[in-house]
């Protein structure tokens, strides 16, 4: 690099090899004269007092920064939601769907057991013979209650799958099939 350009770097503390430049300055009078002239101009610039904006302007800027931060908070949806909260939502949805599925499967089995008693309620049912309380009325109530318990607002794929599963379970637990099985198994 040209020594005259290195002088500029030296004046502003950016020259990497200052000792080499100092040797050049001591050997070259023209270069030294140029250094003096540049240094004087820089000194005059350094002596200028700093200027700053009006305090009210800084306050306005900080106000704008606060407003922008508030308006772009995740709850408003302007700024993209942060990754952890997204993943937690997804996890909660998955767990919720899983629990709902398990609940419905359980209900399906329970319903199936309750329905199996219906055809034989008039004749001596095995459960009644064993001293158990008849379950048919209770099952009917529970079924309507369960229907109400299904969230009407949820029309996602998960619910459609669950609904199909319920249909399959209900088809399997049709009264005629259970009745014929019980008739066959009756001694």
């Amino acid at each position: 690099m040209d020594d005259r350009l290195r002088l500029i770097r030296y004046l502003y503390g950016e020259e990497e090899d200052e000792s080499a430049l100092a040797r050049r300055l001591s050997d070259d009078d023209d270069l030294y004269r140029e250094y003096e002239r540049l240094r004087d101009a820089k000194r005059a610039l350094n002596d200028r007092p700093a200027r700053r904006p009006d305090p009210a302007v800084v306050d306005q800027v900080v106000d704008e920064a606060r407003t922008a931060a508030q308006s772009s908070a995740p709850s408003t949806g302007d700024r993209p939601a942060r990754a952890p909260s997204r993943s937690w939502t997804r996890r909660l949805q998955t767990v919720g769907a899983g629990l709902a599925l398990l609940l419905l499967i359980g209900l399906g089995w329970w319903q199936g057991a309750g329905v199996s008693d219906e055809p034989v309620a008039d004749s001596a049912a095995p459960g009644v013979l064993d001293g158990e309380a008849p379950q048919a009325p209770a099952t009917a109530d529970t079924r309507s209650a369960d229907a109400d318990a299904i969230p009407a607002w949820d029309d996602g794929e998960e619910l459609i799958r669950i609904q199909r599963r319920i249909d399959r379970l209900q088809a399997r637990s049709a009264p005629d099939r259970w009745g014929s099985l019980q008739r066959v198994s009756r001694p």
Partner: protein
Amino acid sequence: MQPTDEELVTAYLDEDDEQAFRRLVERHQDRIFGYLMGMVKGRAAANDLFQETFERVIKAMQGQRGSYDRQGQWLSWVMSIARNAAIDHTRKQKKWAEVPQDEDDGRSFWDTLEAESPYADEQLHRAEQREWLDEHIEQLAPEQKEVLLLRQETDLTFREIAELQDVSINTALGRMRYALKNLRKMMEASNEAALVGALDT
């Protein structure tokens, strides 16, 4: 220990810490404002541009317009925005060049009275010197003036200035060399003229 610019940026963006943002602004206000004052005429215009610069900065930091990629060079990034704002302003001014501009410096009459200060004479002298130098800087070629303001006021390195202006580092250094040399010449001429004027009276 002072937090770095990046730590303050993170505190503002991730924790909505407005005080962190205030510290950033106050830390660099002299640099940014000094540059803007040199680029535009008048304190009121520089105040407007300072605010406009930070409006753009805030929008970009919040991802609303543009972006900030947190590469550890917050000030040079802000300076690029300030530079664009100053260029836009200068273009608009040129459009209205034929309309006479009578811009005040944004200070009231009472603000100009500083005689109560014990350092009033010194302050007045420095203010006059500053004004005198500003007039000389104004006469430099635009590219020389800008490098001088960027290096002297904002403390960006010559490498950062070269990146900002999209020129080689040697070009940036060369412009600075001519700026200082020309400034020195003007100062000498001005001093000689003042000396001649004093001798004439």
